[in-house]
C-alpha cells in the first residue's frame, strides 16, 4: 500500500489540563474519504482543529505528505495543500460570495484563479448566482457550500470538512454529500470528514473511525461500521 497522505500517531491534545484527545491514531490514504463519527463532545472537532495546529498536539505526531506538521503554526499548515471548511462554516459575512472565494485563493500557488472559480461554480451553481451577494445573507446550506468552495479555492490535496451537515435540511445535506462524493471520484481529492450524521457519513466514506471520549473506539470500512450492531444502536437507530 502507498504512503498515507495524513498520518496521526498517538496524538493527545489538551484544553488547559483537560485531555480532549487521548492517543489518537488515524491514517488517511490518498484518494480516500475517511470519516470520524461520534457523539457530542467525543473530540471529533478537536481532532480536526489539532490537525490544523489549534490547539497543537502535546503528544504524538501529525505527518502530512511526509512532513511533520505537529508543531507548525496554523497558517503555515494551511499553506500546505490542506484546506478546511471549519465547524460553523465561518464564512466572512460582510464580504460578497466572490470576495469570500477570493480569500480562499489567498495562498493558492501557481493556480489559475478563473479556472478554480469555474470549478467551484460548476460544483455549486447557486454560488455563481449569488456571487455579488454578501456572505451573511446566504441561507445555511449556501453558506456551507461557500465554505467548502472557499476551501477548494486553495487547490488542496486534503480537504477537511467539519460537520458540513450541521443544521441543514435533509435535501441540502444530500446535495452537499453528493458534491463531496463528486469531488472525491472525479478529482481524486482526499477528504477527511467529521460528522454527527453517521448514517450519511458512513455510506459516503471508504473508511470510518468511531470516537468515544477522546479515543478511537472502532475502525473499519464504512460498510463494516454501518453493519456493526454497536454502531447501529449507538449512532444510527437511537438517533432516528
Amino acid at each position, binding site marked *: 500500500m502507498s504512503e498515507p497522505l495524513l498520518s496521526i500517531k498517538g496524538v493527545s491534545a489538551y484544553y488547559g489540563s483537560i485531555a480532549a484527545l487521548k492517543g489518537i491514531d488515524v491514517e488517511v490514504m490518498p484518494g480516500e474519504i475517511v470519516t470520524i463519527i461520534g457523539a457530542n463532545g467525543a473530540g471529533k472537532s478537536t481532532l480536526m482543529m489539532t490537525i490544523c495546529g489549534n490547539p497543537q498536539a502535546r503528544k504524538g505526531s501529525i505527518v502530512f505528505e511526509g512532513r511533520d506538521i505537529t508543531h507548525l503554526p*496554523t*497558517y503555515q499548515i494551511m499553506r500546505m495543500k490542506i484546506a478546511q471548511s471549519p465547524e460553523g462554516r465561518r464564512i466572512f459575512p460582510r464580504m460578497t460570495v466572490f470576495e469570500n472565494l477570493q480569500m480562499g485563493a*489567498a495562498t493558492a500557488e501557481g493556480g489559475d484563479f478563473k479556472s478554480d472559480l469555474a470549478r467551484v461554480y460548476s460544483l455549486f451553481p447557486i454560488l455563481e448566482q449569488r456571487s*455579488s451577494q454578501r456572505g451573511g445573507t446566504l441561507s445555511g446550506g449556501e453558506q456551507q457550500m461557500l465554505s467548502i468552495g472557499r476551501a477548494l479555492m486553495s487547490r488542496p490535496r486534503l480537504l477537511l470538512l467539519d460537520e458540513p451537515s450541521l443544521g441543514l435540511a435533509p435535501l441540502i445535506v444530500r446535495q452537499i454529500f453528493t458534491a463531496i462524493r463528486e469531488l472525491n471520484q472525479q478529482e481524486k481529492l482526499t477528504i477527511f470528514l467529521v460528522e454527527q450524521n453517521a448514517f450519511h457519513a458512513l455510506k459516503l466514506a471508504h473508511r470510518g473511525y468511531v470516537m468515544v471520549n477522546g479515543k478511537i473506539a472502532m475502525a473499519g470500512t464504512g460498510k463494516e461500521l454501518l453493519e456493526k450492531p454497536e454502531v447501529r444502536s449507538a449512532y444510527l437507530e437511537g438517533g432516528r
Partner: protein
Amino acid sequence: MSAARPAFSSALAHALKDALIAGIVAFGLFILLLGFLTDDQRGPLRLLSRPVLLASAVGIVFAGRFIVSVIYHYAAALRYWLALIWSMVCGAAIKFKWPLLAIMLIFAVIRIYYAPQTWPLTAVAVATVFIAVRFGLSAAFLMLAVLFPVAFYDNPYFLGIAIIALTYIMLGWGLNIVVGLAGLLDLGYVAFYAVGAYSYAIIAQTYGWSFWVCLPLAGLFAAFFGILLGFPVLRLRGDYLAIVTLAFGEIVRIVLLNWVTFTNGPNGIGSIPRASFFGIPFTAGDDGFAARFGLEFDPTHRTVFLFYVILALALLTNWVTIRLRKLPVGRAWEALREDEIAVRSLGINPTNTKLTAFAIGAMFGGFAGAFFATRQGFISPDSFTFPESALILAIVVLGGMGSQLGVAIAAIVVTASFELFREFEQFRLVIFGFGMVVIMVWRPRGLVSTRDPTAYLKERKTISVEHVAEGRG
C-alpha cells in the same frame, strides 16, 4: 456665508423700523386711553397722568412687534438658506435630480442678482450640486473640496476650519485602516500623530531640511512606532487591545513631556519651519511667493497652500486605502475583522496582517502630524492627549467603520459642530455627546454603514437596472 450676515442684519433693521412705527401708533392710541385719567371722586374733576402705564403699554407693543417682525424676517432669511441647503442635500439624492437642479439655478440667479459679491460661492454651490447629480456624492465632495478656497478666499476663518476638518478627515481615514478595515480597536492613535509632529519638528529644526523631505521621514517614523506597538499587542483582541493601545498613547505623551533635552518637555517646540512652495517661502519679501509670481502679498496665500497640501495628503490616504482594499493585504484586513480563525485557516499569517495595518495606519497619522507641526509652527504634548484619540475614534465610529465617505462626513460634521457651538464653551462637549447618542440610536452602525464590495465579476460590471431605467446607459 458672507451673504447670510447682511440678510440677517437687514432683518434686524427692518424689524426695528417696524417696531418703531408700531410704537408711535401705540403711543398715539394709548396716550388718551391709558395715559390720562379723569378723577371726580374727591372734589372737583381732575386730570391725572399715568406715564409709567403708558410707557409700559407702548413698550410691550414695541417689543412684541419687534419680536414678531424679527421672526418674520429671520424666517424669510432662514427659509432661503434652508432651501439652499435642502436643495443641495436633495440634489444629491437619487430621486428628483434634474428638476432640483433647475430650482437651484433659479435660486442662484436670484442670489447673484441681489448679492453680486457672492458669485463665487453661488457658482461653486451650483457646480457642486450639478456634479452630485451627474457623478454622485463622492465626486461632488471632491469638487467642493478643490473649489473651496475659490469660494471662500475672502474668509480666512472658514479656510482655517476647513484645514482642521481636512486634518481630521485624514486622521479618520488613517485610523479607519486600523479600526474600520482590520477591526483592531486602537485608542492611542494620537501617539502616531504626535510621533509624526515631533519627528517633523525635530528633523526640520536640526537639519533644516524642507517640508517635502521631512514629511516622508515623519511618516516612516510613525510607521516604525506602529510596528513597535504592533508587536506586543498581536495576541490581543477587543477590549484588551484597546487598553494596551490606550496605554501606548499615554506612554508616548508622557515621554514627550519628560524627555526635556530632546523634546523640550511641556514647553513644546516653537518656531518650526513653515512649509514653502517648493522652496519659495510665503513671505512679503522679494524672494517670497507673492513677489515671485507677481502677486500682491496676501497672508491668505499660505492658508490656501496649506489647504491644498492637506487636501492632497488626505486624498493620498484615501487613494492608498482604496487601492489596498483591492489588494490581498487589504482583503486580509477585512477578513481578519470578520473572523480571525477563518483567516488563519486560509493560510494567512494574522500577525503580519495586523502589523501592516498598524504600520500603514500609523504612517498616515505621522503625515498628518507633520502637517500639523508645520501649520501650527508650535507643538507641545498638550496637543496629543487622550481626548484627541477619542475624537478621531468617534469620527471613525460615527462615519461607519470602514466607510471612506462616512468618515469624511463625520469629520466635517464634528469639526463644524465644534465651531458652531463655540459660544457654548464647556457645554460644547455636552452637545457633542448628545449628538453622538442621537446618531448611535438613529444609525447604530454609523452614518454610512454599507460596505462596498471591492471586486465584481466581469458580467456584473454592465450597467445596472436603475441606470438603464433612467435612460443614461
